[in-house]
């Protein structure tokens, strides 16, 4: 190569400059939006949690009081289960657990399940899933009331045998044309209750860890 006037060098320099300008632009915009994006993520998570545990019932910082549990046997899924703890003046109020049902029709269904100190379900929400639209997606709170049927249920109500969809002899409705999705959700919620029952102290007493605020990758539903 002979000097900067060589066309290849000139082109490379030009491309380099464009890349540099692009990078500078991105860095600038990232700097401007970074805080706000984190805030939005937090707001979103808190909003989901507060749908289940009323704001008035706790006074700790939910998003900071978090632990993660890895227990592939109990939860039938290798993903760590994130647990948010709600407390009132230090007294345990509820846990919100993000569990994964491994046996949806199209793979994992991620759920947020809230359980109060007495082992009663405060509420369940689907965070993400890939079930068939129109058939399996009534598990979403936006699509039907089905998911609200878990409210105030516990290990004793219904009795252990009742923790299944009706087709399997249990208490929970399935959908027309879709048994697998509700079955997967019922099973995952039941498992979560069992885990809570057996590990209540661990759930509330394990010191909080620092975890990123992002709750879950959202599906495009």
């Amino acid at each position, binding site marked *: 190569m002979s000097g900067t006037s060589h066309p290849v060098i*000139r082109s490379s320099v030009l491309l380099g400059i464009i890349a540099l*300008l692009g990078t500078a632009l*991105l860095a600038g915009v990232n700097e401007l939006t970074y805080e706000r994006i984190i805030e939005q993520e937090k*707001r979103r998570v808190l909003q989901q949690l507060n749908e289940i545990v009323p704001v008035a019932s706790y006074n700790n910082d939910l998003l900071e009081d978090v632990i993660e549990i890895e227990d592939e046997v109990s939860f039938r899924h290798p993903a760590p289960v994130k647990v948010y703890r709600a407390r009132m003046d230090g007294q345990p109020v509820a846990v919100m657990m993000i569990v994964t049902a491994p046996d949806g029709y199209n793979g994992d269904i991620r759920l947020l399940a809230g359980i109060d100190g007495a082992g009663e379900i405060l509420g369940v929400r689907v965070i993400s899933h890939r079930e068939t639209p*129109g058939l399996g997606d009534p598990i979403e709170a936006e699509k039907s009331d089905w998911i609200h049927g878990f409210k105030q249920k516990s290990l004793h109500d219904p009795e252990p045998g009742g923790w299944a969809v009706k087709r399997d002899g249990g208490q929970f409705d399935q959908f027309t044309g879709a048994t697998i999705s509700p079955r997967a959700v019922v099973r995952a919620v039941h498992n979560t209750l069992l885990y809570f029952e057996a590990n209540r102290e661990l759930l509330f007493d394990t010191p909080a860890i620092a975890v990123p605020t992002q709750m879950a990758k959202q599906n*495009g539903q």
Partner: protein
Amino acid sequence: MANSNLKQILADGAWRQNTGLVVLLGLCPLLAVTNTVINGLALGLATMLTLMVSNLSVSVMRGLLKPEIRIPAFVLIIASVVTVIELLMHAFFYDLFRVLGIFIPLIVTNCAIIGRAESFASRNSPLPSLMDGFATGLGFCITLVLLGALRELTGRGTLFAGADMLLGDWGQYLTLTIIPEHPGFLLAMLPPGAFLGLALLIAARNAWEARKAKTPPQAVTTLVPDTHEA
């Protein structure tokens, strides 16, 4: 193609060379996100903005861009613009960002954008290029909105569902329930419905053009796009 008449450019981009209905570029996002009007509108606006900024930047730099580096330069410019839009949406239209998800970054791969950069912006001055970006984006956006309306109406019986994601809280009053107690028409919501809907729109456009061109019959041939660079 190089027509400096802005009105001509607008008509070309929005109708005669409509990206979705005539040139058939960028079909992946077009088919994927159009299950509601609002989703279509949001992606359409994001694409339009990308087209305008990328066309303008390419046009400004067109004297510098040697043929052998123009494609990587286009890619750099377009990728930067799209990422900026993605960050801004993430920060300011978070709910919409969640719905559109992967399709925002995928605007980069919409060949309509690099196509306009290559076939128009790299040969024209900034103002016509900006106009071309606007017109092409408008054409794409209109297609997305129409397809979204068609699918939302037949699939769920509503229009403008989720407008609050784009416009803030008052947007939820915009949601029109056209067919109450709609049982849901699954086909329209699933990908096959997108293909069928697009086919119907293309057919409707062709029928319109054919009717308009009834007097001189050979004018129907103008339906076939004469530029197909990308």
